[in-house]
């Protein structure tokens, strides 16, 4: 006869092994037998939360609504070098935008895609709405509705007989009295249900119950306020939490508030204060580097990325950013070393091979170039990536003087992505060399159309 494991213990074990779905099903069974089992209830909320959990610190993208309709920044036109809204004013003596390409918003292209690298404000609402449709950047309508709602609704589908906890019937004041339940419940409401208003109420009641002495609740309050767009209230809560307990997370959240307020120097200052408390903390260092990078102060950014690598030599973001910086400052050989390090890290995708190919080409290792691009082509996930690879190949072809190959490459780039402005431009140049003015006109007409669409000057 086989002895059954205690079901709650089994559920725990599943939870620890991150088998959340099984864990939550097991908890449901326990709850059917004894509906008032608090341990099972709490475990189930935690399991459900973990399924949809995304780290709050990194998930942040200003939606169209926030971007256009809110004005949190104090200075409308700040002094150059003190604002994130004024790109294109290089401070740190990095390469000029002529050498290093910039994004649509005028920021230098970084080596790493993350939320908020696409920031920069369009001029009008109409432009803001139109831009994401053409530029493959799915900016959400608003940060409250964007990603979060999608996560929330996805989880709703998994429970066939209604949601696990009916929020409207919950007596929040009662749960706030029970610290061991309230924290799990809060995370469930905040992450799973995505009901910030109720989460805020629960947090407010709980922090009152804890006599305003629990820093955790203050951080959660701050998170709620931040989501609601009440930045000043969020700032107050985070600061108060920091007074009680120094936490890396709290520093990062507060930094986010300052970035939203467009006060990069205050954010930098805060992160450096954080470094005093947590010396050489990687996330804080990365935060500093990112802000410098967004302010176009590449030299300082690279310095901090190097500092990050000293602590954590597997940090992909730092490696990629330093690599791209070396590439754009005419050191393709060194960039190549960083990109190879990335390969060792297990990053295996189209973009990386693309970069490797370019580095090899500029480092005059022609044998490696074409094979790298071939791999990039085979790894490309969508047409846009294919177009980019062909475009780069076109460049290589120009570099080796084979204008026929270049012509074919650019044509292929256009075949895969017909609003690839740079390809149109280069094609027009090639046609001009051949003296076919009609064709030049044709391509530059396209180019003009695309530029109009982007509203680039």
């Amino acid at each position, binding site marked *: 006869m086989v002895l059954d494991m205690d079901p709650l213990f089994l559920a725990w074990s599943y939870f620890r092994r991150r088998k959340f779905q099984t864990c939550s099903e097991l908890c449901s069974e326990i709850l059917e037998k004894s509906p008032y089992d608090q341990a099972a209830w709490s475990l189930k909320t935690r399991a459900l939360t973990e399924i949809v959990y995304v780290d709050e610190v990194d998930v942040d993208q200003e939606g169209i609504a926030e971007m256009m309709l809110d004005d*949190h920044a104090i200075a409308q*036109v700040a002094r150059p070098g003190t604002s994130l809204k004024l790109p294109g004013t290089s401070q740190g003596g990095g390469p000029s935008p002529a050498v290093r390409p910039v994004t649509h*918003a005028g920021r230098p292209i970084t080596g790493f895609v993350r939320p908020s690298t696409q920031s*920069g404000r369009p001029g009008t609402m*109409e432009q803001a709405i*139109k831009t994401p449709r053409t530029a493959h950047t799915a900016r959400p309508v608003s940060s409250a509705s964007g990603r979060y709602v999608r996560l929330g609704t996805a989880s709703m589908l998994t429970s066939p007989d209604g949601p696990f906890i009916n929020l409207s019937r919950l007596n929040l004041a009662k749960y706030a009295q029970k610290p061991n339940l309230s924290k799990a419940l809060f995370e469930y409401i905040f992450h799973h249900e995505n009901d910030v208003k109720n989460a805020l109420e629960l947090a407010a009641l709980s922090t009152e119950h804890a006599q305003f002495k629990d820093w955790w609740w203050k951080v959660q309050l701050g998170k709620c306020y931040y989501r609601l767009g009440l930045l000043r209230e969020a700032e*107050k809560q985070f600061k108060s939490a920091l007074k009680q307990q120094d936490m890396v997370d709290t520093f990062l959240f507060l930094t986010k508030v300052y970035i939203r307020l467009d*006060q990069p120097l*205050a954010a930098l200052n805060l992160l450096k204060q954080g470094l005093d408390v947590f010396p050489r903390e990687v996330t804080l260092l990365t935060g500093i580097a990112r802000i410098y990078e967004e302010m176009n102060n590449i030299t300082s950014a690279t310095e901090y990325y190097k500092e990050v690598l000293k602590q954590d030599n597997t940090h992909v973001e730092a490696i990629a950013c330093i690599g791209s910086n070396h590439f754009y400052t005419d050191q393709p050989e060194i960039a190549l070393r960083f990109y190879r390090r990335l390969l060792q890290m297990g990053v295996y995708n189209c973009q990386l091979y693309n970069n490797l190919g370019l580095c090899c080409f500029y480092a005059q290792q022609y044998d490696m170039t074409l094979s790298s691009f071939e791999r990039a082509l085979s790894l490309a996930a969508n047409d846009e990536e294919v177009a980019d690879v062909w475009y780069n190949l076109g460049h290589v072809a120009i570099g080796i003087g084979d204008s026929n190959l270049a012509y074919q490459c650019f044509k292929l780039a256009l075949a895969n992505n017909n609003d690839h402005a740079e390809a149109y431009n280069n094609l027009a140049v090639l046609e001009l060399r051949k003296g076919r003015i009609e064709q030049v006109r044709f391509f530059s007409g396209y180019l003009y159309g695309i530029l109009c669409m982007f509203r680039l000057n």
Partner: protein
Amino acid sequence: MLVPVFTLKLNHRINPRMVTVGKYDGVHPCLTAATQAGKVFIHNPHSRGVRLSSHRLNPSSQDTDVSLLNINQAVSCLTAGVLNPQHNYDSLIVGTQTNLLAYDVHNNADIFYREVSDGANAVVLGKLGDISTPLAIIGGNCALQGFNYEGNDIFWTVTGDNVRSLVLCDFNGDGKNELLVGSEDFDIRVFKEDEILAEMTETETVTALCHMHGSRFGYALANGTVGVYDRTARYWRIKSKNHAVSIHAFDLNSDGVCELITGWSNGKIDARSDRTGEVIFKDNFASSVAGIVEGDYRMDGQSQLICTSVEGEVRGYLPASKEMRGNLLDASVEQDLLRELSQKKQNLLLELKNYDENAKVGTGSLSETDGQTGIIPANTQLQTALSVCLGSETQSPNVELSISTCNDTIIRAVLIFAEGIFEGESHVVHPSVQNLSGCIRVPIIPPKDIPVDLHIKAFIGGKNSTQFHVFELTRQLPRFSMYALCTDKSLSVPKSKVTFLINERVQRVIMWLNQNFLLTEDIGSPDVSFTSLRGGGMLCIKMKPNGEITINTDDMDLAGDLIQSLASFLGIDELQVEADFPVYFEEIRRILIKVDEYHSVHQKLTAQMADHSNLIRNMLVQAEDARLMADMKVMKKRYSELYDLNKDLINGYRIRANNHTELLNCLRAVNQAIQRAGRLRVGKPKNQVITACRDAIKNNNANALFKIMRAGTASSSL
């Protein structure tokens, strides 16, 4: 004639009284002012051409010198100055009704952002007393708070009413700054840190204060009065039908002494000598003056007087050169003076003629012209008497001033001038011809318990005379004149009381009673009861032979006034008082509970509004989206949803606004209670009470609060 050295049109409206000049990079002075829609603009003409224009963001279209700061709330006050002593550049301090922001303009970074529930009506930046770092001191709803550069409130105290103006100046000449506070209860109070050094009572809300030099300072009132004080003594004052918006001290005629520059609501600017109030310069703006500041705006080493109007016009004046010898007004003013003098001469000649004629008649036949001329018996005397009148059905209780002549002459008119009693400060009694008599009774109702000098001018003459003699005399109204002696012992004594012990003879207290109350005859024993003419409440004062004085009254303000008056009369520096006001304390307890409720409701409402506004933003974007895709049906649907939600939001806002005003009223009542508790004590115990009360409020400990109010200290027996 002094002309502006520069004029600017800024194309931004300027809110009155919200103008300052700050050197945000430590070198270049920038004119900073609050403008509409919760914005602050900074005019920086010095960095012209340095600014890089990026390819996308064009700095504010027409004038690149002006940059705007979003405060997103109606600004209520602002100032600039060095806040962090380690920095050598200025910070900008902006106050709104709920928040205080200290902002580093140069680095685009907050220094601190604090919620101030009492609001910020006025702000001043500088060093106070012995506190080592500069403080940003804000005055709000009955409270004063001082923040250092870390955002900690180092200084806190309460004052009688809403603060309207603040200035730092060395009032008593000890080399340290005192804080002068002008408030809505017409008082100018002088704080040496927590301690009140002096109180001056004015006749209207004190809207502006400025430091002249030494212990001299200028003030402006809401009724258009402007004047200068030296310590507690008033040098001069003038009154205008316009309102003084801004006052500033500036040496315009280069004589080494600052003049008082006043900007008026009709756009006039005048400079007055600090000794006499004589106008030495004036100029006119097309619209109301918004603020007057000074700064080296042309960067040539000389500081200019900078005047701004609400329409955004700016004029800068350099101090007059020596050659002008202080003669700043143009020639036409001299002609005006000449005309004035000849007018005076005319009047004097006319008067002389009258006297001549009188003399002629006097020597001639007296009987026939008796009624016509103003001859009155030589021994005519004007008698005045003050008495308490309990009132009747037709008239509310008042203090009665009766003026009578000693013979059969009549009083044609009486002109009484007294500060703060009558509207417009003076009162004229002018009986109709049929009712002329030798006696006139004037009811007086002083609104506050303060001693007042009544300057009386009476026109006295014969029954039919056309010319009258003017009698002038001054009478003092005692401080507690609105209390009638009550001999009826059967009336119940109020339960609320204060008790304290003094080391003084009984006679001295009796003397104080006789001097400060309006009594028909002097009293002999220090055990008296009064009824108040204002509310009818009882007031009993009793002194035991051991020096213990008990004052029974339900009015805490009155008890405070009595104690302050008695202490200053007897020269007591420190007085500890036991107080018990059960009814009032119960009310405060209720208010404290209400404050908690309002706070929690406020938080819920805020979250709800933020949620709604998120939804609104979404819908707006979606609607615009639909418009761009020419999907009119969806667009219409979205916009109608938006309309409904907007209505909801407006309703929510109303509820929130009501909640906020209620909360403010409650907080104000709490602050007033602390102030009243402080006023019951004298000297050190007074400050102890205020700081202990503050701590109790911070720790949300209502019981401790009442204990402190009662006993005067946060005693260890808690």
